[in-house]
């Protein structure tokens, strides 16, 4: 079996477990909505929340929700005692990494599909240049899923991983967050490609680094 076939098999297995247990995704969606509501409370001025807070609330809520999801990303394998077996399977640890990154990307995309309109409604945002925000979200969630799957895998066997994961992940994901917030804010202001080009290219560069480095580091460091 090739790495791609193994990755697909592991991904299908993870999706089947997630669909059967239904424990993670539902809680992630509810948590993200609750988090957005709490943020909105923090930004209310005279009963109305200003739309300039939309980029910050959206991206920070997504980061917090992703962190929560990442803490459970490898737990099914660990609880079933399959962690070592999965790492030592025929294809090595790389298919495990890709399947977990794809699962995390899937979770965060579903959360984002629910959260984005909710934040727009809560904070009274206009639907302007939505395609640029969608592109930034895609790039941002991809980078977060790759960095997150790596960090969660690295910390899977370490004491206090719940505390260490944000400590490790947030500085690494911060450039993506910074660029994502900037692109969303520019899109809401009606800006076009030349103004947001450098930020989107920065996100693309980070994703390219993540695609190359994260699987290699996972294979080297987790075994």
């Amino acid at each position, binding site marked *: 079996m090739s790495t791609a076939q193994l990755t697909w098999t592991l991904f299908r297995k993870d999706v089947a477990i997630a669909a059967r247990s239904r424990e993670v995704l539902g809680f992630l969606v509810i948590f993200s909505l609750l988090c957005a509501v709490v943020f909105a409370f923090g930004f209310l001025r005279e009963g109305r929340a200003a739309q300039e807070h939309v980029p910050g609330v959206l991206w920070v809520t997504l980061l917090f929700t992703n962190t929560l999801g990442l803490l459970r990303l490898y737990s099914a394998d660990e609880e079933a005692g399959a962690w070592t077996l999965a790492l030592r399977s025929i294809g090595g640890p790389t298919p495990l990494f890709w399947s977990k990154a794809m699962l995390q990307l899937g979770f965060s995309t579903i959360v984002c599909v629910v959260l984005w309109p909710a934040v727009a409604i809560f904070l009274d945002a206009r639907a302007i240049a939505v395609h640029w925000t969608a592109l930034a979200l895609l790039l941002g969630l991809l980078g977060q899923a790759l960095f997150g799957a790596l960090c969660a895998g690295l910390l899977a066997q370490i004491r206090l991983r719940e505390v260490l994961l944000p400590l490790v992940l947030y500085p*690494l994901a911060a450039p993506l967050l910074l660029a994502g917030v900037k692109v969303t804010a520019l899109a809401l202001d009606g800006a076009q490609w030349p103004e947001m080009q450098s930020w989107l290219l920065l996100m693309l560069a980070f994703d390219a680094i993540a695609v190359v480095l994260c699987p290699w580091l996972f294979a080297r460091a987790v075994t």
Partner: protein
Amino acid sequence: MPNRHRTTPLLSWALAASFALCATAIGWVFWATPIDDNLGIVQKIFYIHVGAAFAMLLCMVAAAGAAVVDLMAPNEPVDAFGRAFTEVGLVFALIVLTSGPLWARKSWGAWWTWEPRLTLTLLAAFIAVAVIAVRGFAAGPRGGRKIGNALIVLAAPTAYLIHIAVQKWGGTHPQVIQGGGIANWQMRLAFWGCVAAILAVAFAMVALRGRVLRLQTTVADLQLERQAVQLRRARQQAQALSQTALAASLNTAPPA
């Protein structure tokens, strides 16, 4: 038997010389360089700030290089010096992040601006803290070694972005070296003297810390070896006792 782990006289001399060089350079900064017309006495922070930023950048790049080498082919001295570079890099990042706002308050009118180079220096410092914390929480001196190395390799692109941030994004950070240099020869001499002195201190600190970390690993190995010997001895004693007890029970058993 000679103690091969004793701090070598060369290292002690290098450390003393680097501190002496640093003291001389700082003395030159305060007594021999003119006060800047626009910024006043605060401009003298520049001599320390830039040198510390160079040291931080070099330490991070060296730590990333050591991490890559150790991930490809595990090597104890490389790992020890990689950790030392990370820790010393963090010390200099903190110096940069402390001296920067002091200068920025006078120069830009604010303690902190979310300018790309400042932001990424802060992020690099957080990454170094995370790496040190991961290695600290993992069990044993070798625990978290690969994980720490993987994280520091990821920090390398961040260090690169710190270097190119101003040119790429056009931030407000001053570019004294690239932007025409320092006109006054006394200032120029003091600046490069400070850079050389701070780099010398950084490398002396790395050498010393690397040596301490290697000693810690050796001590941990010796403790493990001692525990293994004690366990082996205890097992042999238990086996001997059980054999004696068995022989005694056979001898005292009543005839059938």
